[in-house]
Structure formats: structure tokens, C-alpha cells
């Protein structure tokens, strides 16, 4: 298939792997930020092609994984209300809250629907004026423009029965949190190509400079990732720490300006708790005052809460690249996709789920 097959070419992949091995003289630890990249790395076995000196650690860029359990509980509370149609992207439905997940709400009669776009949820709201339609707005900068557009449209068309449960998170503050942690071992980053398609990469330039880490904006296909690793290793070996763009077919330095304008119109930067990591200042998006009537938390009068998570789950350490999934004593035994202790075992983009699904028996891989 065009635009797919050429980025999965076996001979070229082997060629890139050899090139990486040729320029590698020291041990390097590189983090891919995005869960989509983690999934591709494990699914295609990209890390198996790399020289032993290079360790890939998996970052916090899985929106399903970092959505805090308190917000999942709020989603479950709203979805359980009799007059509500609760719309969500598919992979949020299996994420465990403190007592159950959204699929269980559906099994108990709640009207929980999978949608592919927030605009579909808005359409459902227009078609069901006597029901409250709530969309679960999760994700990084990638999904923010579409979610902003849905709210903006609802505002323009005066759709009163539509609201968002917002759990948006931002990449750069999470990278800074990882880099400033005393346990940090990340020496270079592959930044998330889709996020940068929207936001550009100027906001990464001060981070690269401040922490002296190379950051390579990278795509999601095997050859993208191998090329991103090559560019990152090359910088590390040469002692450089620039922001470079591997994903040139999609990403411009300034990003998608129109999309950014829409995000700024609808959302403002707020502090946000990350599941397994804790609160990171200025790391999330919330609705601005102008759009407050579309805030589901306000509409349903939900109160703040705090939930204790499984003490055995090391999701926070996995999401910060400090531990690999198989270093968790519960991995594959007390924690499986059927009975997850933490979110990284749920989402197909979660690091634990990717390891469980693709290489359970080879823990040393």
C-alpha cells in the first residue's frame, strides 16, 4: 500500500540498523515520547535491530495511560446518569476506574458509545435534544484541535445539551518533568510527530538547550523511527543537542497555525494530574471562561476527589522510562490486559500491554 509499504521495507530497515550500529560508540538511552511509537517499536521488533549499546525507554505519550483515575471515575459517574449519552474514543472504555470501567457501565445499561470524532458526538447531541451528550476529551495536542472545534461549533450553533469532560495533556511539560527528575536516565528524545504536526517544534528548542538533550521529531512507521534513532544517536555521538525534524513530510517548524489558534480560543493551560506520575504544573488544557457552559464537570456538579491506586503498580516508573514493564513483579501474572492493575496494561499503546502482547516470553529482549 502506497505511503505505508515504503516505510516498512525490510531491506531499508536492515540498512538503517547497520548505519546506526556503525556510528554508535557509547551506551545511549533514548526515549520515544509517544505511545504510538512504542507500539510500532514493539510490534515490528525495531529495538531488536539496534546495537546493544542503545536502550529505548518508553515515554508517557499514551493518553489512555496518563488519564488519572479520578477523571475515569468522573466519566463513569456521568455515564451512569440515566439521561446521558456518553461518547468516547474506543480505547478509553476498558480503562479501570477505582471500581469499574466504562464497558461495565455499558453492560449495566448506560448509554456509552464509541465515536471516531468529537464532531460525531456533537451530531448525536443535535439529534437527541432531550438528552445530555458528553464527549470524553482525552489526548495530547493531537486531538485538541478537533475537540476544540466541536465545542466551538456547539457554541456557534447554540447546542446546549453538549459538553466535554476534559482530560487534555501537553507533551513539553511532561518531558521537562522527566528531565528534571533525579532518577532521569533519558539522554535523547524522539518527539511525537503527530503532536508536532499541530504544534510545530519551536517549544522544544528551549528544552533541548536547557537540558542539553537532542530532540528529534519522529514519525510512526518503522523506517521513520529508525531514521529518528539514527539522527538522535548521531547528535549524541557528536555532542550536539538540537531539535531536528525527521518527520518532514508532515511537520513544519511553526506547525498548524490555524489549529493552534482554535486551541487557544477554546482551551487554556491548566495544571493536570498524570496517572502514575502526579500533578505536573501547566501540563493540561481546560476550557476557557467563554466556553465554561460546555464543561461537563461543571454541568454535572462533580466534586474533586482523590483515589488511592494499586500500590503494586509501577506505571509511573514505566511512564517515565525508569523501569521496563517486565521489571514489574505483577507483569503478566497479577496484571494482564484482562485484569489490569494500571492503565499502561489497558491501552493498545500502553508500554505494558505492548510488551505483554508481543513478547511476553522474552523478558530480556
Amino acid at each position, binding site marked *: 500500500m502506497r505511503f505505508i509499504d515504503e516505510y516498512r521495507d525490510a531491506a531499508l530497515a536492515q540498512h538503517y540498523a547497520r548505519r546506526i550500529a556503525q556510528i554508535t560508540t557509547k551506551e545511549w538511552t533514548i526515549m520515544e515520547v509517544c505511545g504510538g511509537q512504542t507500539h510500532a517499536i514493539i510490534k515490528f521488533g525495531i529495538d531488536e535491530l539496534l546495537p546493544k549499546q542503545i536502550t529505548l525507554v518508553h515515554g508517557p505519550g499514551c493518553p489512555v495511560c496518563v488519564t488519572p483515575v479520578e477523571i475515569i471515575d468522573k466519566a463513569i459517574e456521568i455515564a451512569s446518569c440515566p439521561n446521558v449519552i456518553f461518547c468516547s474514543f*474506543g*480505547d478509553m472504555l476498558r480503562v479501570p476506574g477505582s471500581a469499574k470501567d466504562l464497558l461495565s457501565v455499558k453492560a449495566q445499561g448506560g448509554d456509552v458509545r464509541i465515536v471516531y470524532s468529537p464532531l460525531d458526538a456533537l451530531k448525536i447531541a443535535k439529534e437527541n435534544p432531550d438528552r445530555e451528550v458528553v464527549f470524553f476529551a482525552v489526548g*495530547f495536542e493531537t486531538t485538541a484541535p478537533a475537540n476544540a472545534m466541536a465545542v466551538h461549533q456547539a457554541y456557534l450553533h447554540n447546542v446546549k445539551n453538549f459538553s466535554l469532560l476534559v482530560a487534555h495533556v501537553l507533551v513539553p511539560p511532561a518531558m521537562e518533568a522527566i528531565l528534571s527528575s533525579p532518577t532521569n536516565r533519558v539522554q535523547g528524545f524522539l518527539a511525537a510527530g503527530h503532536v508536532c504536526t499541530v504544534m510545530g517544534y519551536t517549544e522544544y528548542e528551549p528544552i533541548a538547550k536547557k537540558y542539553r538533550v537532542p530532540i528529534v521529531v519522529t514519525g510512526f512507521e518503522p523506517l521513520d523511527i529508525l531514521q529518528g534513532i539514527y539522527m538522535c544517536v548521531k547528535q549524541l555521538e557528536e555532542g550536539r543537542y538540537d531539535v531536528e525534524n525527521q518527520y518532514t513530510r508532515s511537520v513544519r517548524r511553526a506547525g498548524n497555525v490555524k489549529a493552534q489558534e482554535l486551541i487557544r480560543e477554546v482551551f487554556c493551560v491548566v495544571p493536570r494530574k498524570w496517572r502514575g506520575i502526579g500533578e505536573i504544573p501547566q501540563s493540561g488544557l481546560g476550557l476557557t471562561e467563554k466556553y465554561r457552559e460546555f464543561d461537563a464537570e461543571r454541568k454535572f456538579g462533580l466534586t474533586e476527589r482523590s483515589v488511592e491506586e494499586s500500590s503494586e503498580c509501577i506505571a509511573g516508573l514505566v511512564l517515565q522510562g525508569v523501569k521496563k514493564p517486565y521489571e514489574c513483579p505483577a507483569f503478566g501474572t497479577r496484571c494482564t490486559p484482562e485484569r489490569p492493575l494500571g492503565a499502561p496494561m489497558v491501552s493498545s499503546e500502553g508500554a505494558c500491554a505492548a510488551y505483554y502482547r508481543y513478547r*511476553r516470553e522474552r523478558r530480556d529482549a
Partner: protein
Amino acid sequence: MHDDFALSCPIPISEYPQILLAHGGGGKLMHQLIEKLFGAAFANQYLSERHDGAQFTLNGAKLAFTTDSYVVRPLFFPGGDIGKLAIYGTVNDLAMCGARPLFLSAGFILEEGLPMETLWRIVQSMKEAAQTAHIQIVTGDTKVVDKGKGDGVFINTAGIGVIEHDLTISPKSVRPGDSVLLSGDVGRHGIAIMAVREGLAFESEIESDCAPLAPVVLKLLEEQIEIHCLRDLTRGGLASALNEIAKTAHVSISIDESAVPVREDVQGACEILGLDPLYVANEGRFVAFVAAKDTERALKILKDFSPDAALIGHVLQEPPGMVTLKSRIGAQRILDMLSGEQLPRIC
């Protein structure tokens, strides 16, 4: 995985107090339900074969017997409808036993308010499918439930076929060294249904692969191919079927991802939705485990029916119960069974 076969009382599946949709999704939860609840309660020598249908001898005649229920939404979709599925699905289960399908039953659960015209179209479709598959519908049943208690129409069919050969076609006949042949491209039925159900529009309409498999299987038998096992790829797709067989046969199955044919439009839809075509449902595809010596002849026969048919892998001794896949870029990984339903990803 001996835990899966353990029977404990009184309710063997304690972690799920309620049935979830995933219990019917063809993945691990459904298998847990079958193994721990149904299989344990009804245990007998025929059921323990874990085949698509039971095979037994009655007064010297070798017969195959199977049943399936059909609950598809929408009732009509590109390339088929619930009636066609209800005939071909059961016919295909018989074919997977290496049987010549003969007779089917048809049970209808109709929802109050179902337009008569809709039922008529379904019945006409079943009639045509029965003619194509050379079977007769010889008994049936009708029930009507209150409006809101059904999804228009549910159909159950059961079928009987006759086995006219001496092979034991069963997962337990699979041997290391066997070739794994796939009868055509995968993923079309699941994507066709999802496209209609979710209102996804593609440049060209993707049609279900819904088709009877008995003709090609009977041809393989007629040509005396040494078939060890057949399995149609329905819910859970190719990956689940291979995992079921690897576990039942205590063998390892190794396949090559780049050898698995996936049509470009299906691949495109899967890329957009974040789905893996190896887990997407089919209704007219199967895998055949054949003795290595017959690989070329069997492949030629399969290709006569579907040009996309391919040799996708081999059976190995170790590690038992596991399916491994050589990825497109040449690395090895596990091809696991899905734990629940495949859910579209966020981004």
C-alpha cells in the same frame, strides 16, 4: 495454561460478575467462558476436540454436527446480510470438519415490529444461499419477542454433514512440519460491517468476503490432499484461529506477516482506525494445515478458488501453544490472542 481448564465451584468465572460484550468477541474472555463454564459443565469426548463441529459415527456413517447463532447489525451490509451469513456460517463450520453439508435447521427470534418485507428479504437470501451451498433447510422454529428485546431478527442454524474420507481433520492432528495455508485476503467482512455500522465512508465500498467454503474443501479432499486441520476465520480473525489451534494441538505456529494478503482498502481502513487486520473478522476465509509434501498441490487448488491464497507459515515443535510472527521488517514477535474486542485507538 492449565489454569484455564480448572473447574471451581460454584461460579467458575468470579472476576466478571456480568457478561460483557467481549465475552462474545472471539478473544480470551470468550475462550475463558467456553473453557471454564460451558466446556467444564458439558464435558465429553466430542466437545473436548474444540473443533468447529462435533464428529461422530452413527450406524457406520461418519457425521459432523454444528450450530451457530447470528446477531449481526446492520442486517444488510455490502456483500451480504444476516440470512446469507446464517447459511454460509454453519455450512462453513461443517466444511471445516471436512464434511459435505447436507441439512440445516433454522430458528428465528423476531422482534415485534420487524417489517415483514425485511424478513422476506432475509428469507429470500437464505433460500439463494442454501441453493448455492447445496443444502436443504429441513426444520425450523419461530419465536417473537417484545419490541426492544431483540435487534430486529436473530437467527440460529444447526447443520449436519457427512464425512466421506478417512482423515481425522482436527486441531489434534496438526504436526510439526505442517504447512499453514490461508485461503485468501483477510479482514474484509469486519471492515465492511464496521464501515456501515459506524458510518465510515471510503472511496470504494468494501464488501464482505461472506462465501461458502465447502466447494474448495471438498476439492482438496477429492484431490487427496493430506489435510490435518481446517479452521474458518470468523470473530477474532486469523490471529485467534491460529492461537486456538496452537494451544489445542500443543504446537508452535510461525507465520510471515508479509505473506498474509490484505487488500489495500482494508489495510487503509485498518491504518486509519488503528486496527490490526490479523484480528479482524472474516466470513469466507479459512486456514488449512496440510502435510508439507502436499503444500504446492493444495496451494494451487486454493488459488483456483481465490487467487490471493497463500502459504503463510509452518508448524514447529517449540514453544508449544504459541504463535510467532516474522514482522515486515524481519523481527520475530508473538502473535497473541486478543483479550477483548479490538477497540479503535485515539490517535
